[in-house]
C-alpha cells in the first residue's frame, strides 16, 4: 500500500469524522426552542417620559399603575386616565404638545396605543405585583430609577438570580416559602 494512498484514506476518514462532529454540534445548537422572551421592539408611537410625569407632575407610580396594589399585574393606565390631566393641561414644549395632540386624537378615535414591553416574565413564571407592593417592596427595587428616565430602559436582568438575591435576604421565617420553587414557578 503506497504512502500517499494511505494518507489520503486517513485524511478522508478524518474529514468525515469532522463533518459528523460539526453537524452534530450544529444540530445541538439549533435545537434551542427555548422560551426566552424577546422584547418587542416595536417603535413607540407615543414617547412617554416617566421623568416628567413623576418629577415635574409629581404623580405617584400607583396612580397610573393602580392595580399593582390589588392584582398580580401592575397594568398600564388607560387613555382615560391620561386624559384626566391632559384634557386640561397645556405644555410649553412643542414636541410634547404634538405628542399630547396625538394622545388626544387616539383617545377621541378609540385608537390603541401600543406601548413597548420593557420587562416581561416568561410563561412559566408567576409574579404578583400585589404580593410585592403590599409587602413594602418599592417599585425602584426591581424597575430601577424609572423616575429619572425619559424613556424607560431595562436596567435589571430580571432572571431567577435577581429574584433569589432579594428573597434570600428576607426574615428567616419567610425564607422557606420565598425560595420554594412553586412560589414563582407555575
Amino acid at each position, binding site marked *: 500500500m503506497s504512502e500517499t494512498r494511505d494518507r489520503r484514506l486517513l485524511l478522508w476518514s478524518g474529514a468525515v469524522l469532522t463533518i459528523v462532529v460539526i453537524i452534530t454540534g450544529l444540530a445541538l445548537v439549533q435545537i434551542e426552542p427555548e*422560551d426566552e422572551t424577546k422584547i418587542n421592539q416595536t417603535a413607540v408611537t407615543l414617547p412617554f417620559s416617566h421623568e416628567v410625569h413623576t418629577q415635574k407632575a409629581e404623580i405617584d407610580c400607583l396612580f397610573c399603575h393602580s392595580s399593582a396594589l390589588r392584582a*398580580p399585574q401592575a397594568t398600564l393606565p388607560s387613555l382615560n386616565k391620561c386624559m384626566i390631566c391632559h384634557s386640561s393641561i397645556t405644555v410649553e414644549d412643542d414636541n410634547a404638545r404634538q405628542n399630547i395632540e396625538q394622545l388626544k386624537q387616539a383617545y377621541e378615535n378609540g385608537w390603541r396605543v401600543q406601548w413597548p414591553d420593557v420587562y416581561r416574565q416568561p410563561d412559566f413564571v408567576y409574579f*404578583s405585583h400585589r404580593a410585592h407592593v403590599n409587602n413594602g417592596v418599592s417599585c425602584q427595587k426591581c424597575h430601577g430609577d424609572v423616575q429619572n428616565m425619559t424613556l424607560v430602559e431595562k436596567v435589571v436582568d430580571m432572571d431567577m438570580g435577581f429574584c433569589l438575591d432579594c428573597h434570600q435576604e428576607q426574615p428567616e421565617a419567610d425564607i422557606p416559602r420565598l425560595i*420554594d*420553587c*412553586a412560589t414563582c414557578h*407555575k
Partner: protein
Amino acid sequence: MSKYEHHWTMIVDLDKCTGCQACVIACQAENNIPVVGEDEIRKGRGMQWLRIERYWEGEYPNIRARFIPLMCQQCENAPCEPVCPVFATYHSEVDGINVQVYNRCIGTRYCANNCPYIARMFNWFDPQFPEPLNEQLNPDVTVRQRGIMEKCTFCIQRIRRARETAEAEGRSIRDGEVQPACGQACPTNAIIFGDLNDPNSQVSRLAANRRGFRLLEELGTEPAVIYLKGGESNVI
C-alpha cells in the same frame, strides 16, 4: 401537626365515586393538559393527570365494577423525588406536597419509572392547541413543552391564589377555600380537599374514618391522598 405550613390532603370516597369522568375533564381544562389523539392513546400515552381505573370483580352474572380515581398521591415519602438529578421534583416545605417544576425538568423520566402509582405523564411531543382552542388555556398554568414530565399538582395555582388573597386580607386560608378542579366538579362529592393541619377541616374529620386507607400503603410512601373504601353490602 406536621412540619408543613399546610398539609394539603385529598379524600376520595370510593363509595361515592361513580367513574363519571367529570373530574378528568375538569383537571384537563384547569391544567392545560393537551389532547394527544387516537394513535397516542392507543400507545398508552394519554396525558390526563387524573384517570379512573376500572377493575372487575367476579364473573357474569355476579360481576361488579370498581372505580378508583388515581392521581399523583403527593407522597410524604415520594419515590420520585430523590431520583431526579436536577431537583425538578421536590417536596414543598410549605404545602407538604410534591411539586414538579416544569421548566427545570430535563426529561430523564426516572421519576415516572419510580412512581408506583404511575401518576406521572410525559410530554412525548409538543402539545397542540389549534387556534382558537388556545384561548381557553388557563393563564395560571404554563403549557409544557415536549420532553417535560408533568403530574397532578393538587391545583397548586389555586392554592397559590388563595394564599395570596388570604395574605392580602390578613387572615389564614379557610377550610374549603381551596378546591382542586376535580373536587369542585365531582357531582357526587366523592373528592374532598383540605388542610390536614387544621383539626376542624373536613378532611381531618374524614381522614379518621374507619374506611380510610392509602393506596399501596405497604410501600411506605405515605400518600396525601386517602381513599375511603367502597361499600360492601351483600345484597341478594
